[in-house]
């Protein structure tokens, strides 16, 4: 008995079972369902690629709003959040331990809040009432005469989503990059300067980033995943799905819309599959970019 407990299977089985049941199998089911018509009441009916064709050719909301919104959101929040994380980590690494710890905790703290719990802040700050903080300031300064409907107007929602997401973008990847910078061997820098390194920029690109590439890659994955995960925010801010004129509609909201509002599970699964592929593809591309440059 005792010798059996020591087999590798005992160490990995609990994790593998949970991983399979709640991550691997769901992904496979999503792929399977994406080829079916499934309204949750009748058994799924196999319809081949029809959902995919529909998504790419007929779903006007997807092509006109959801996809462009997702791409805009992801291509701003992802890279900007990633660069902010790196730059802030790089600066933090160059100040003494105590202030660094305090500032790092503050910068990381938004990652510990849950999106829903913070909704109250954004709804009060950006409220369309004159009593909303931002509106109140704008009114007092005479910049506007009427309060702006930040959260329910299609013109502003996306920008506010981007700001709020950037606010919370210093997550685990940021901590990893900070630790990575702190652990670079100092003699590398000295040697490089002897070899003719001229300035800070060269130093960052020839020494710092290459020396912490593993952390840079980890941070990149976390940034990509975090960005696509953050999609629920538009619905929370505007208070409804779909968001006003689909202005803040991202892929995760589109999944919810079809899955839990219209109960078209097969179709919702197609969007899920496309989303997972997109995250995977973008992560891989980022790896290539980071890998090739150095």
């Amino acid at each position, binding site marked *: 008995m005792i010798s059996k407990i*020591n087999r*590798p299977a005992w*160490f*990995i089985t609990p*994790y593998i079972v*949970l*991983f399979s*049941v*709640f991550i*691997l*199998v*769901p992904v496979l*089911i999503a792929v399977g*369902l994406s080829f079916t018509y499934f309204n949750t009441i009748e058994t799924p009916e196999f319809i081949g690629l029809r959902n995919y064709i529909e998504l790419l050719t007929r779903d006007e909301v997807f092509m006109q709003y959801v996809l462009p919104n997702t791409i805009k959101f992801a291509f701003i929040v992802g890279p900007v959040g990633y660069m902010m994380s790196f730059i802030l980590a790089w*600066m*933090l690494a*160059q*100040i*003494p331990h105590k202030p660094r*710890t305090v500032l*790092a905790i503050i*910068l990381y703290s938004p*990652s*510990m*809040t849950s999106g*829903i*719990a913070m909704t*109250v*802040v954004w*709804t009060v*700050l950006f409220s369309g009432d004159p009593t909303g903080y931002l509106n*109140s300031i704008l009114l007092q300064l005479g910049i506007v005469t009427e309060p702006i409907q930040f959260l329910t107007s299609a013109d502003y929602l996306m920008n506010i989503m981007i700001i709020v997401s950037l*606010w919370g973008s*210093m997550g*685990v990847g940021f901590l*990893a990059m900070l*630790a990575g910078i*702190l652990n*670079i061997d100092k003699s590398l*820098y000295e040697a490089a*300067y*002897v070899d003719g390194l*001229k300035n*800070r920029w060269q*130093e960052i690109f020839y020494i*710092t980033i290459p020396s*912490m590439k*593993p*952390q840079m890659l*980890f941070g990149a*994955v*976390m940034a990509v*995943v975090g960005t696509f995960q953050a*999609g*629920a925010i538009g619905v929370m801010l505007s208070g409804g799905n779909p968001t006003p004129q689909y202005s803040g509609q991202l892929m*995760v909201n589109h999944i919810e819309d079809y*899955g839990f509002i219209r109960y078209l599970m097969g179709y919702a*699964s197609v969007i*899920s599959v496309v989303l997972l592929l997109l995250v*995977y593809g973008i992560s891989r591309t980022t790896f290539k970019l980071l890998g090739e440059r150095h």
Partner: protein
Amino acid sequence: MAKFQGVNINPARYHKSQLKFYFVLIPMALFIALPIIFIVSHAFKPENELFAYPPRFFVRVPTLQNFRDLVSIANESGIPFSRYLFNSFVVTVLGVTMSVLFTSTAAYALSKLKFTGKKVLFEINTIALMFVPIAVTIPRYLIIANLGMIDSYFVLILPLIAMPVGLFLVKQFIDQTPDELIESAKIDGASEMQIFFKIIVPIVSPALATVGILAFQLLWNDTSGSSLYINDERMKTLAFYFSTLGARTGNTVAGQGVLAAASLITFVPNIVIFIFLQSRVMNTMAHSGIK
């Protein structure tokens, strides 16, 4: 020859050359902290200050009324506030314990034990770092319903336990421990389980603390489990109760104080635990790289 003018990483003390960094970092930290300071301030505002025009950022006459309302709204709806708190407590404690245990044993096996398929398993896990849980809400629901797990505590815990990031971090951390340590323990007659608990666990405790924190954040903040898989109101969690407050208070201005109090209660345990364990987290992150 170029003078050495490179970075001073991890300086021992303040120097005026660091001023430029503080110049960026402090305003940035203030900007980031502002919404959180707002939550703290708002949570203690009495009704007349919540309604004040023009709105004031900081509270003047702090009161605990919002927290009392938070409790009484729950009690009036028939589910005592303490019940939600108890549920969250059970779910979080069990979940964090299981997550740390299962993740670390698996990480140890993937790092140090020999068995077929271990490379593939780690590859799959690394790909799963890119996994977006929201994308599979529907299949997850179907699985849970078919397993008959609706309306049980397990359903609030089990889906969140296997964290690819957690396994990844602990495995990378265990990779750093020398094989000789394990070899010599084996010669002394220790079994794999003994080696794991007596030798590995103490060494990798920073990584375990990190997994614990990540699991805590997931479990304590989670609302989707309660809303999707639990019909019995008595089994839902505190975070879920808080997420329904907007509707319960009718999204009124007076309700904002209560919502802020709820956000504060959700946030405080997260930050307290992180502050206590932050040095361990940083230690773990040093080995976090994807190689």
